[in-house]
C-alpha cells in the first residue's frame, strides 16, 4: 500500500458510512531494524494546518480551544480500528461517539433551532 496515495487525505467514514473527516495525518511507529508501522490516523483542522505550517497548526488549536471544542481533539484513531480502505477509509467507530463530531454537534444545536431544518 502506498500510504500517501492510498490513505493520506482520503475520506474517513464510520461503520455506518457517515462522513467523519479526512485522514489529515498519519502516525508512524518507528521500530529499530524493522520497517515503520502505521500506528494511527489523525483527523482535525489543527493537524491539517500543522501539515502546512506548524504555526498554522498552533493557531488552529488555539481557535479550537477558544471555542471550547478542543477536548479529545485532534482525533487519533488506532490503525487497528480501520475496517477497510477502498474509496474511503472505513473505521469501526460511530461518528457521534468521537470528538470528530464535536463541532458538527455544536453547530447542529444552532442550525436545528431554526424552523424547517429537518
Amino acid at each position: 500500500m502506498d500510504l500517501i496515495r492510498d490513505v493520506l487525505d482520503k475520506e474517513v467514514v464510520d461503520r455506518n458510512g457517515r462522513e467523519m473527516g479526512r485522514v489529515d495525518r498519519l502516525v508512524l511507529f518507528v521500530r529499530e531494524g524493522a520497517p515503520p508501522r502505521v500506528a494511527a490516523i489523525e483527523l482535525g483542522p489543527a493537524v491539517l494546518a500543522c501539515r502546512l505550517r506548524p504555526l498554522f497548526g498552533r493557531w488552529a488549536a488555539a481557535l479550537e480551544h477558544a471555542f471550547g471544542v478542543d477536548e479529545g481533539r485532534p482525533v487519533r484513531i488506532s490503525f487497528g480500528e480501520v475496517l477497510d480502505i477502498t474509496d474511503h477509509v472505513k473505521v469501526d467507530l460511530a461518528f457521534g461517539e468521537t470528538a470528530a463530531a464535536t463541532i458538527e454537534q455544536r453547530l447542529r444545536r444552532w442550525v436545528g433551532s431554526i424552523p424547517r431544518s429537518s
Partner: protein
Amino acid sequence: MSALVDLVLGIVTSIGGFVEVGSISTAAQAGSEFGFQLLWAIAAATVMLAMLVEMSGRLAAVSKRSLAAAVRERFGIHFQIVPLTAELLIDVLLLAAEIGGAAIAVKLLTGVGFQWWILPIGVAIWLVLWLSGFAVIEYGLGLLGLVTLAFVASAWQLKPAVSALGASLIPSLPTHHHTRYAFLAVSILGATVSPYLLNFYSSGSIEEKLNESELWVNRTTAYTGMCFGGVVSMGVLVTSAMVLQPRHIIVDSYDQAALMFVPVFGRWAIMLFAAALGIGCFGAAVELTLNAGYTFAQVFGWSWGANKPRRDAARFTSAFTLVLLAALAVGLIGFDPLRLTMLSVALTVVIMPAVVLPFLVLMNDEKYVKKHTSGAIGNAFLALLTILGGLLALVVIPLEILGG
C-alpha cells in the same frame, strides 16, 4: 424516459443559468466598444467551458467524487491550499458582484438605490438555500433564467449581417485601443470559465446520482447546454454592438447597459433587462453560495448535500451561510458592482492554470475515471489551456491596470 427528461431539463437549465453578472458586463462592454469583433472570444471561452464541464461531470459520474474532493485526495492539501484559498476569495468577490447585479436590477424596477436591496437579496438567497432541494435550485432557477433569452430575441430582431457575425468568429486585431481589447478578451474568458462552475457541476452530478451508464447525458448536456448558453452571451454582445456602439455609449454602469433593449422592446425594455439581469445574477449567487458550502465540506470530509436536512449537515450549512455573510459585508461596503465584477473575472484568470492542471492528471488516472480517460484531443486541449492559462495569468493584471 427519466434520462431523457434529465437531459432536456439539463440543457434548458444550462441555457437559463449561463448568463450572469460577469458574462453580461464583459459582453456588453465588448459590444459597445468593439462591435462584433470580440465574438470569437465568447465562442472560444464557451467551447473551453463545455469541455471542462463535461470532464467534471465524467469525473463525478465515474469516481463518485466531486472535483474538490478528487483534487484533495489526488494532490494533497499542499497543492490544493493556495488555489483553494484564492478560489474562495474570488467566489466571495464574485458573489458580492452577483448580489450587486441583482440589487441593481431591483433598483431599475423600483428606482430605490441598489444598496438598500443588498441585504434583502442576501436573505432571499439564504432562504432559497434553506428551503429548497437541489432540483428546485438547479431547475427552478434555470427555468426562470430563460428570461435571458431576451438577449437572443433582441439580437435577432436587430437583424445583424450574418457575414459580419461569421467573420467575427475569427480573431482579428482592432484598429484602436489594443490594450483594452486584449483586456476584454481575457475578461470574457475569466467570466465564462468560472472555476466555481466546475465544482458545482461535479457536485450536482453527485447530488443527481449520475452514473457511468449516463455519461452520454452528461456529454450532451455539457456541450449542447453550454453552447446554447454561449449564444445567449453572444446575444448580449450583438445587441450592445448594434444599439450602444452607434450611439457612442460606453458601458460603465449597468444602467447604461439596460438601454440596449430600448430599440427592440420599447417601454418594456428596462423591465425586461432588469428581469434578465436580476434572475441571472440571483441564480448565479445561489449557485456560488451553495458551491462554497460544497467546497468546504468536500475538502474537509464533512457531510454535505442540498438534499439533506440542514441539521444533518450542520457544518456544510454553516459554511455556506458564513460565505454569504462575507459577500454581503463586501457588498455593503459599497463597491461598484461593475468594477467588482471586472476585478473578480481578472483574478479568475490568474488562478486558471491551477484549476485546469489537475484535470490533466485526474482525467488520465484510471483510478478515478476507469476506462473513460481523456483521448488525444482532450489531453491536447487541457495541455493547451494550461499553457494559455499560464500566459494569460501573467498578463491579466498588467492588462487590468492598463486596459481595465
